[in-house]
């Protein structure tokens, strides 16, 4: 029934303009308090012609008083490789925007939200360069960036962090391994290693990501004024699954277990989240989550009920 064939890897030569506006409203407990309101708006514009693609994305996150350039870059794609310069997501774990943000789960996993060296999060973009190469079932990504960038820097003044990711698939699994190395004094000798796996079947998707991080030690002030030490050895693991009932295209159910463990201080925090996402109409989704945990010292990572309304418009 199925026929496998090759298709031209590059786009047509006509100029193609596009964009999207995504807006979310949420009511949820963060930092121990119930907050409601405008969670984020992400505006994206893109222009593509032949092998070239330019993209600009602005991300406002009023819920936490944060705004910044998101994925904003110039990309050149050939048949089996591409090079990107600008603000990129570091290729560590399952790192693309939709993998992090578009699911029945309202909040991201702890390993994406955690503040790492210099107050940086994997969920945020970094200025730098991304090289991708793929052959057959294999895909290799190399990200080069800096540990001293500001939220609106497009390119790094110097490169002192490198992240590499290898990914392959053997249907129905996608497996990946990633590593981040920051060997300079500026970045406090930070290293991360990560392994991940995805399993998908019609109506089912299951994911697991493990990340281990080591750092020589630094402190910084978080956006809410908390002084955070990033030294030591931490591990994070999450497993989640989503299910779409057969014949029902607009409903998804989800279950996620999320663990964060500080090996150095022998402490840990874990959450379990139940979720339901319902597509009200094309481009409008509602989601409700209930999270068991975390413990008291980690209340900034939520818990209890969370509701979200997401509006997505492409043009």
């Amino acid at each position, binding site marked *: 029934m199925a026929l*496998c064939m*090759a298709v031209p890897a590059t786009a047509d030569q006509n100029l193609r303009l596009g964009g999207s506006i995504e807006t979310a409203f949420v009511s949820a407990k963060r930092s121990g308090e119930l907050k409601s309101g405008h969670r984020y708006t992400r505006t994206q514009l893109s222009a593509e012609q032949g092998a070239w693609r330019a993209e600009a994305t602005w991300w406002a996150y009023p819920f936490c008083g944060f705004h910044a350039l998101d994925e904003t870059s110039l990309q050149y794609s050939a048949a089996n490789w591409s090079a990107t310069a600008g603000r990129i997501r570091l290729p560590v774990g399952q790192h693309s925007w939709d993998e992090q943000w578009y699911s029945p789960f309202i909040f991201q996993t702890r390993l994406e939200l955690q503040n790492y060296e210099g107050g940086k999060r994997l969920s945020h973009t970094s200025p730098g360069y991304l090289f991708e190469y793929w052959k057959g079932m294999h895909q290799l990504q190399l990200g080069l960036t800096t540990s001293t960038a500001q939220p609106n820097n497009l390119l790094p003044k110097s490169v002192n962090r490198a992240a590499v990711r290898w990914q392959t698939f053997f249907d129905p699994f996608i497996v990946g391994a990633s590593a981040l190395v920051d060997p300079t004094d500026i970045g406090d000798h930070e290293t991360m290693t990560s392994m991940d796996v995805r399993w998908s079947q019609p109506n089912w998707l299951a994911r697991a990501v493990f990340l281990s991080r080591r750092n020589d030690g630094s402190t910084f002030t978080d956006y809410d004024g908390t002084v955070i030490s990033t030294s030591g050895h931490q591990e994070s693991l999450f497993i989640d699954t989503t299910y779409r009932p057969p014949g029902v295209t607009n409903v998804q159910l989800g279950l996620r277990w999320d663990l964060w463990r500080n090996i150095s201080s022998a402490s840990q925090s874990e959450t379990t989240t139940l979720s339901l996402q319902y597509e009200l109409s094309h481009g409008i989704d509602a989601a409700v989550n209930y999270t068991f945990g975390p413990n008291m010292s980690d209340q900034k990572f939520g818990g209890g009920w969370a509701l979200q309304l997401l509006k997505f418009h492409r043009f």
Partner: protein
Amino acid sequence: MVFAAALILAQSPGWISGQILANNKPVADAVIWLEGPGEKLKPIRAKVIQRDRQFMPHISVVPVGSRVEFPNMDNIYHNVFAEHKAAKFDLGMYPKGQSRSVVMDKPGITSVLCSIHSEMSAYVMVVDAVEALKTDRNGRFKTKNLPSGTYTIQVWHKTLGEANVRRSISSGDAPVQISLKK
């Protein structure tokens, strides 16, 4: 869901045009197909491209027996599967630069999904008809030249559902107006 739609059939020799409305607003991307006299549409080779983590076009209409290809133009793996009245298949997972296809040999609507990216969806309407097309952004449509006779005009829209109307269309007839309620 209750809705009202109107088909305004302006008929000059050979073709039918009109507009789909719901609550007095034009309905874009509604699928129109006609059954009646004349030769039925032959199978075609159609494409639904996976690009920027979406299926394009979001809604397609093809004659029964057509082969639909799903090329992956993204830098990431995609899967294609469907489970609906007209087709149930799983084309598996494949990377950029590859395409897989399926012959859709039963009339009806098929929702196409990606098991890896839950936000991706598309609809393929398979029809056994003499003419098939989609409305434009103003809800309007215009058929190819058709022989005179009685046609069943069927309409499907993703959220408004399905309706059908029987009309006798002859050369030189005055435009007709049809209201639909569901």
